[in-house]
């Protein structure tokens, strides 16, 4: 596909410590809803879904490279809406669409179907920002992309560690 690496020397950041789940299972009320409207907790849950996705080029997770951070995720449970804003490592990164696709597939597989997922490149971090955003949120184009076996392989490869 690509001859050289797009970003040969990415900066690897220190991970944020993962917060353990609070409260033991026994003590919890059986019928209490672990509320989806509880923003912090639930966005963390989401993070557990996407933070482990691998970068297409490097053996690091998106979190290591600060492509995704905790603050870049907005959740509104009542309106069933999620918006993820990610930051490509370099401006002309051609992997941006692949990363976005990974995010979308991961969220599609992990969220209840009532959710509307919106995936965007952080403003000003990519050369063809508008094009990428459009491509990522066009459901026909996403569906078409997922019929391409090469792309699906690549996406699955990136998603593999996040299911462990």
């Amino acid at each position: 596909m690509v001859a050289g690496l797009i970003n040969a020397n990415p900066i690897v950041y220190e991970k944020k410590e993962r917060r353990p789940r609070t409260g033991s299972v026994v003590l919890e009320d059986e019928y209490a809803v672990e509320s989806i409207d509880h923003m912090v907790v639930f966005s963390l849950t989401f993070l557990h879904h996407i933070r482990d996705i691998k970068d297409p080029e490097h053996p690091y997770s998106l979190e290591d490279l600060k492509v995704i951070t905790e603050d870049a995720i907005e959740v509104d449970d009542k309106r069933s809406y999620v918006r993820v804003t990610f930051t490509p490592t370099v401006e002309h990164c051609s992997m941006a669409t692949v990363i976005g696709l990974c995010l979308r597939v991961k969220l599609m597989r992990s969220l209840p179907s009532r959710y509307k997922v919106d995936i965007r490149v952080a403003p000003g971090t990519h050369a063809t920002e508008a094009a990428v955003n459009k491509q990522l949120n066009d459901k026909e184009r996403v569906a078409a992309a997922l019929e391409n076996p090469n792309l699906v392989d690549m996406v699955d490869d990136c998603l593999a560690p996040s299911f462990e």
Partner: protein
Amino acid sequence: MADSTHCVKLIESFVDSSSTPAQQAASIDAIAALVKNDMLTLESLVREMAMYLTTTDSFLRARGTLLLGELLACLASKPLESETVLSLIGFFTERLADWKALHGALIGCLALLRRKGNVGVVSSSKALAVAQSYLQNVQVQSLRQSDRKLCFELLGCLLERYPDDIVHLDDVLIPGICESIDGEKDPECLMLAFHIVEVLVHLYPDPTGPLASFATDLFENLSCYFPIHFTHPKGEDIDVKKEELSRTLMVAFASTPLFEPFAIPLLLEKLSSSLPLAKVESLKYLSYCSDKYGAARMAKHVKVIWSALKDIIYTSPESVLLLESEIVDGMSFQESHTVTEALILLQKVFCQNSDLLIDLIVIDEDIKKTVDSIYQFKEYTGIPLADKQRLHAVGSILYFSAKSSIGSCNRVFEAFFPCLINALGISAENSVALLSSPCNFGATYLCVELLAGCRALVVRTKGNATSNVIVQEAWCDILCTYSTSLTKLFSFTLITGVDGSTQNACLHSGVKGLQILATFPGDFSPISKSVYESILLKLISVVTGNCKDAFLWKLALKALVEVGSFVDKSEDTEKAQSFNAIVVDKIASFMLCDDLSMPLPLKLEIISSIGTTGLSYMQKFLQGLECSLLASLSGVYVRGDPENLEIATSLLECYSCDVLPWFDSIGGQEEVQFHFALTIWGQIGNILSFCASSQEQKLLSAAMTAMQYAVGRCLAENQTVIIDRAFGILLSTTSLPINDLMDEITSVKVEGYKSNDDLGCMSCREKWIISLFASVVAALRPQAHIANVKVILRLFLTTQLSGHVPSAQALGSIINKLPVKVENMDASNVFSLEDAIDLIFSSRVWSLCNEGPTNCSVARNNNETSIRNNLLIQSHAIEGLAWIGKGLLMRGHEKVKDLIVTLLSCLLSNHSEGSLPCTEQEFLCVMRSAADAFHILVSDSEACLNKRLHATIRPLYKQRLFSIVLPIILSLISKADSSIQRAMLYRAFANVVSGTPLSAVLSEAKKLIPILVDSLFVLSEDILNKDIVYCILLVLSGIMTDKKRSEVVEENAHIIVRRLIALMSYPHMMVIRETAIQCLTAMSELPHARIYPMRTQVLLSLLKTLDDPKRAVRLEAVKCRQACVSYMEFIYPQLPRVHIAIQSRHI
């Protein structure tokens, strides 16, 4: 003799390059078997093989040689003629020059050289020839790994088995070995190579001998491996661990003092490396090598080692990171690995060259600077981090200096102690002026470390009868002079703690100092008796008076425990007396008085921690404990006092959790348990009327636990005494119908009447007596004699009908332990198991269970309440029967079958006919208790019938029950006609299955799976059954994860999946949903043809589960979905489109 064609065929099959390794191994084994059984001689075999051994075709030659070599390895214990061995070793020696056939030759040589004893061994001249040929012909480093390994094995074998012959080869041997090791990189080979060096060095013990000239070369070969560093990726499996290799290299390093001029500089150089690994390794090697090289050789390195060590201890970067976590425990740093190793090395150097090292320490500028600037370190919080670390380093150096020898202790005292004393403000004996200002933390800390070192020195030299010498030493004089003021100073640090001005670190040092002063061993003690007593007084006053400062309280208690266990071990009677008088008596009296200034839990903690340091202390405390227990109990009995209730409960818990188990652990103290049980009974016997209290149930159960524990630990004869005593009290209780039960005729009547009353009618005292009596009975050993078994049985049969569970458990326990009838026994006074069973099966409990609710005699002509009452009694009877059944089952008695049949008939009792005025719920209650009886039968109980309480337990009794019950229940289920009956049968089935070990269940998996799935369906309808549903689900998942049963799961895949999908939305219990999804994930691994039809259904229901209220369930759902999707995509590449289509509808 085997015919030669067969033999030739075997040889050919081995030599043939087209045969598989398995065939080759088989032919070797076949030939070896022929030779072993003398069907074939080696000579004739060699003759047959002649062509293969000498041909010019190098492949065939190599195979032939290998065949002969491997054959000899198989024949290690077969006796061979010496000529045979001679000619074979000659052949192989020659073959060592043939590099194409080298592999076989090495194996052959090794096999022959390893032969032992009288089976024909290689002579020493031939071994020498092997060595010569080897050294001349084999280029080890040009061979592949397996051959190199063989080469090293051969060398090792020669060196170990023929050292006296090999030794003469010195001028070729040592260079040869150097050459073969040079450049080796494989860990396994290196292990052997290092070992060879070690053995080689031992061959030449003479320091001026041939080794001396080669030592440089040899060490050069070794030195390049230090420190051992593996470059292999972690995943690769290497048999040799890094630690083992490093250890072997270390032994090789230390093998001869001749290495010292090279090794020590190398290690010191690596010590200054920035790699932590290299540092730790160098320190380890230095410690080990300095032991082996000896003090004289090491003396010249002491100075360099000291400066390196000081650097490490002073500025270890790792310990800085861990520094801030230390506040909890005073000034103790969590030491890094490097520092620990450095301190070990410091000790080693002290052992060897104590005088040299102490010279260096005394004049060391850095230490001197720290000690001189000690005035600055007044308060702990004010000290900068780096200084704290330095203080800590100096502390440990002082500790080890004082500890290592008397001489160094003197020196270090003379050098530093005066300065510390000045900083502390103590100038002479009994100086009191210091009490005006807060003490200097730094000086206190160093002082305490120094004292700790002195104490360790005294402890170490105690056995050497030098204690008299110690007393005359200089440091001892100094210490004695200042000991009183020091004690005062340390005590003073504790006083200032009250107003909160001192930090924890200061308190820690102060308490530690007091503890050290009080525990100087033997005849030697720097402090007088009065000072010792004042220390104890100080500590005890903190413990008994100051419970506000929890940290100080804990420290003081810990110190007292240390002092106590020290005094208990030493033979010093004077100190023991003081400790007894000051600490033990004080605490004992403290327990006696009703002092409410200290909370009871703290008091009990004091008792259980100090009491456990010595038997005599605990015995003393026991009186106090007993008094307050009796007082509080009588308070509860007589006045129903809620305060006393709480006190008594925690006292009883202290007995059953701390005190009694401790007496049990030291052994030989059964009297204590016996006495405790009798005391409690005595008190109950004396108090005739009880005041009922609302929350006494908790107290009663605490009393029962303690009683059960105490009685269970008693000897059988003591148990007999207790049970007699208890029975006497039972008899004297007029409100109980004991006297009637004595009589055969009236007893039936009593049973009938009494059982109509429920538990509420029993007076408080009756309830206590019956409950405690039941717990005594449950704890008896089988050997204990019970005098009135018949009456006791009748009594329990009566009381358990009113719903008293301990009575039912006691019944089960009696049945479990009664002796079986023996023919020639005097039948009149021995009540056997058979008699007991007869009694039970003729009792009302039995008849109640057998008569079913509809046709009970009362039903026809009595009103609604009495029927309801009757149903209640019936369910109590069923529970009692279950405990009796458990007793029978555990001892493996046949009658348990009758009992199970009865329980099942209760379970099926048909209530639909007849128009009784009771609701269905009440009938259900009876049926449910029958179903739950199986839970009692199969589960383990804490309260009775377990190993601790001496139950008779036949192995595999649960499996036995399973095999009895399973066929009956299965046939009943297929016959059952009402849904309620089915539900109850499934409930009973679930109880049995979930209690049986999984291995037994697995063997019946084929039959069970449909029933398990059905029971999941039936039971999940009632919310009350959720725990049982979970248990069944666990059994099911156990079956599913067992690889051997996968075909059973496969056959039933569709029903299992359908049930699991339904359970995925089970609203009442999160773990059920979670487990169901996990099971589905496991199912996705089944063959595709089975799973494929269910796919859409699973995926769709997973979509719903992704919105589950619980996080854990959602996560499992995502995992399961991924498992399903990825598997199906793998098989059917077009599937993603379908799958995406399902999803994109919702986007």
